[in-house]
């Protein structure tokens, strides 16, 4: 195509280069390889039940990782998501339990608990965002601080032990995790809906374009009439809201929360985002990549459980290694491009 470099007027629409396409398909390729590996290791791997199980398990981290995609695309980072999810789960349990005596164990109490969980997430995320934008503190520091705070709060609320959801309320609440909509498990339905809305928001709205611009060069964004602080704060608030949603879906799974709930979810969420092809330094993000990334992580965990060569306890070591390798690949792609 470069024969046209004679620099005459060239019309804009022309397909991008093929190599870039290959890079874009990298996560899908990795997913395919893992599927083949899994099927080779265990005959039960490719069953509908196992696949549904994997996606359902991936949906908590997935919903959080979608929020993280926005934050990272805008050039930020949120390390507090795991602690925040645990804290919100604890708060939902406490609120529902305290309402049961007066409102009963029906959808009234559970509904208020769910709403409170979402609101707490929104506020927590907005607080992170406000400290980053108005407070002008590095997002790494802000969210490292709030990571500690939320983790301490859940330990404090559970008094060092475990918070358990009221037994009857648990019966009301559990369909939100174990139920199905049109034969599809509810968490998967919600995960898919969130992913679709987020993908559209990222590609087709001014919000998506603005966060990419801010992540690419904040000064340019400011000089281009973009309300940089407002957009950044929105990404953190959105992240908080999605953490709240993940917690809402997580509570009925075990009906309990304690200090080890959702530990290292931030690692998984950020790993999923990076595997999916979103640039760690910001400027470019894709939601479908993150979705693929989450499923890749979950597949690795699943495969580790299906074989007995490598200890499944090493799962997080794999995740940690993957995040580093993904960033290395990103960098080499940039330098060769």
């Amino acid at each position, binding site marked *: *195509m*470069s024969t*046209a*470099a004679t*620099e*005459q*007027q*060239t*019309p*804009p*629409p*022309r*397909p*991008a*280069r093929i190599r*870039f396409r290959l890079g874009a398909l990298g996560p899908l390729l990795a997913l395919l390889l893992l599927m083949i590996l899994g099927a080779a290791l265990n005959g039960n791997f490719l069953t509908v039940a196992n696949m549904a199980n994997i996606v359902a398990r991936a949906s908590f981290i997935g919903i959080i990782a979608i929020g993280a995609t926005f934050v990272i695309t805008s050039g930020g980072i949120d390390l507090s998501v795991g602690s925040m999810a645990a804290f919100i789960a604890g708060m939902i349990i406490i609120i529902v339990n305290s309402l049961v005596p007066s409102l009963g164990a029906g959808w009234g109490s559970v509904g208020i608990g769910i709403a409170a969980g979402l609101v707490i997430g929104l506020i927590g995320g907005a607080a992170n965002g406000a400290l980053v934008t108005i407070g002008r503190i590095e997002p790494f520091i802000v969210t490292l601080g709030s990571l500690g705070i939320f983790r301490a709060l859940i330990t404090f609320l559970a008094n060092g032990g475990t918070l358990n959801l009221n037994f009857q309320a648990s019966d009301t609440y559990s369909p939100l995790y174990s139920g199905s909509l049109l034969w599809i498990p509810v968490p998967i339905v919600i995960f898919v809906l969130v992913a679709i809305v987020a993908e*559209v928001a990222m*590609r*087709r*709205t*001014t919000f*998506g*374009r*603005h966060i*990419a*611009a801010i992540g*690419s*060069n904040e*000064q*340019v*964004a*400011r*000089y*281009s*009439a*973009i*309300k940089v602080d407002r957009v950044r704060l929105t990404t953190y608030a959105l992240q908080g809201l999605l953490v709240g949603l993940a917690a809402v879906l997580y509570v009925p799974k075990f009906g309990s929360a304690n200090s080890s709930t959702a530990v290292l979810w931030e690692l998984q969420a950020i790993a999923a985002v990076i595997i999916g092809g979103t640039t760690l330094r910001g*400027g*470019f993000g894709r939601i479908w990549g993150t979705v693929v990334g989450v499923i890749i992580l979950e597949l690795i965990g699943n495969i580790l459980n299906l074989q007995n060569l490598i200890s499944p306890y090493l799962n997080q070591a794999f995740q940690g290694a993957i995040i580093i390798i993904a960033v290395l690949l990103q960098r080499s792609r940039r330098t060769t491009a």
Partner: protein
Amino acid sequence: MPIEAGTQAPPVLAANRISKSFGEIPVLFSVDFDVRAGEVHAIIGENGAGKSTLIKILSGFEQPTSGTIAYDGRVVTLPPNGEAEALGIVLIHQEFNLAEHLRVVDSIFLGREIARGGIMDLGQMRERARELLQTLHVDVDPNARIDTLSVADKQMVEIAKAISRDARVLIMDEPTAVLSLGETETLFEQIHRLTARGVAIVFISHKLDEVMRIADRVTVLRDGQLIATVEARDLTPDSAARMMVGRELHNLYPPKHEPDVDAPRVLSVRHLSAPGIRDVSFDLRKGEILGFAGLVGSGRTAVAEAIVGLRHRTSGEIEVNGRVAHFASVAQSLAAGIAYMTKDRKGKGLLTNMGLRPNLTLLTLRRHLRGVFLDTGSETRALERAVRRFDIRARDASVRAGQLSGGNQQKLMLGKTMESEPAIIIMDEPTRGIDVGTKQQIYHIIAALAAEGKSIILISSELQEVIGLSHRVLVMRFGRIVGELVGDQISEEQIVRHQMGIEGKAA
């Protein structure tokens, strides 16, 4: 003023039949070049002519695809990544390579600290740095931190660093692009001192008058080809421009329309003060091109930023179309029809790692909404229009803004600004570092916009440009407006006198 020794000496550094391709794209075709001790050899050419590639090859940062480099008459392969400095070949990049948080002395000795057993001898380093700066007549404190220095002083530190490495060939990429007139003079004195010591100087410049003053020989490149290497004294502005462009450059500046003195005032600034500027007052009329001259740092950009809400206004009034208008953000000023086009293309103007389309529409995304969704088709049509209107040349649609030549980046930024259909456009250095052909195009666009009834504030450090385009010129000095020139008064001499404080209100 060619130095006799220089013209007879054998070349220190020579490139023989150098070709270079990046991937499939050839950028240099069999170019010959050499520089002798004590000589200043300038390279001129339009953007994309291959100047930067040539000097990168001369300094080892790039390897030629074919051809050879000879140093002291011996064919060599220069080591990459600036390691050629050890051989005495130093390239000073356009964007300096100084760590902003280090002190001057640390920068000069970076990587070759004077140390014994791993412990640095700070006293000796400081003493050596001070001596070095003195021999260069540079008044910079060796203990000052780099980020506290002016651009000109940073450049002097780069030169000092080069000298400390016993540079025999000093290569400079557009050293004067960021300098004011006074600073340029200092640089030229420095160059004379260096050539007197036998240092060979290679430099790229877009300013013909400078080239003709300082260079002994001039090499002209065009589209990667060597057009000619000539004695600077044989060069005229016309012949140089002809060789660079390959066509006659008639009417660099379009004819000026008589300004309409009765046209309504669209912008009035009264006693505006902000960080960097004090008590600035002026009017802008419909269809007028108002030039802002002044040295770098005299406050011209600060005025623009204070008007559009990018800089905090401490006092004063701004009126747009007779109504008080104080903007807190670019969005507000844009809504009132005032657009500011930054001089910092890569830092503040364009998202260099994104494509042309998102860059073009970034300022005006809302116009491309259908419901809550972006209409990429509408964006693409906007890009097609802008490509035609501003003659933006790109290899194909997937090119990122950062890969465009400087001139095309400037046109893209112009397109982006004009997408907002502003009535008042503040252009800050609209032709900085771009080639003559593109400059001419931009001059004609500016004049055409004014003829359409747009009002333009033109901030420029190129006096010829201010003089050639403006109906009226304001001169700034130390954050104040010190003079207003109209009609026949608009001359290089008058502007310089005001800039230097020889004439006009005391600063």
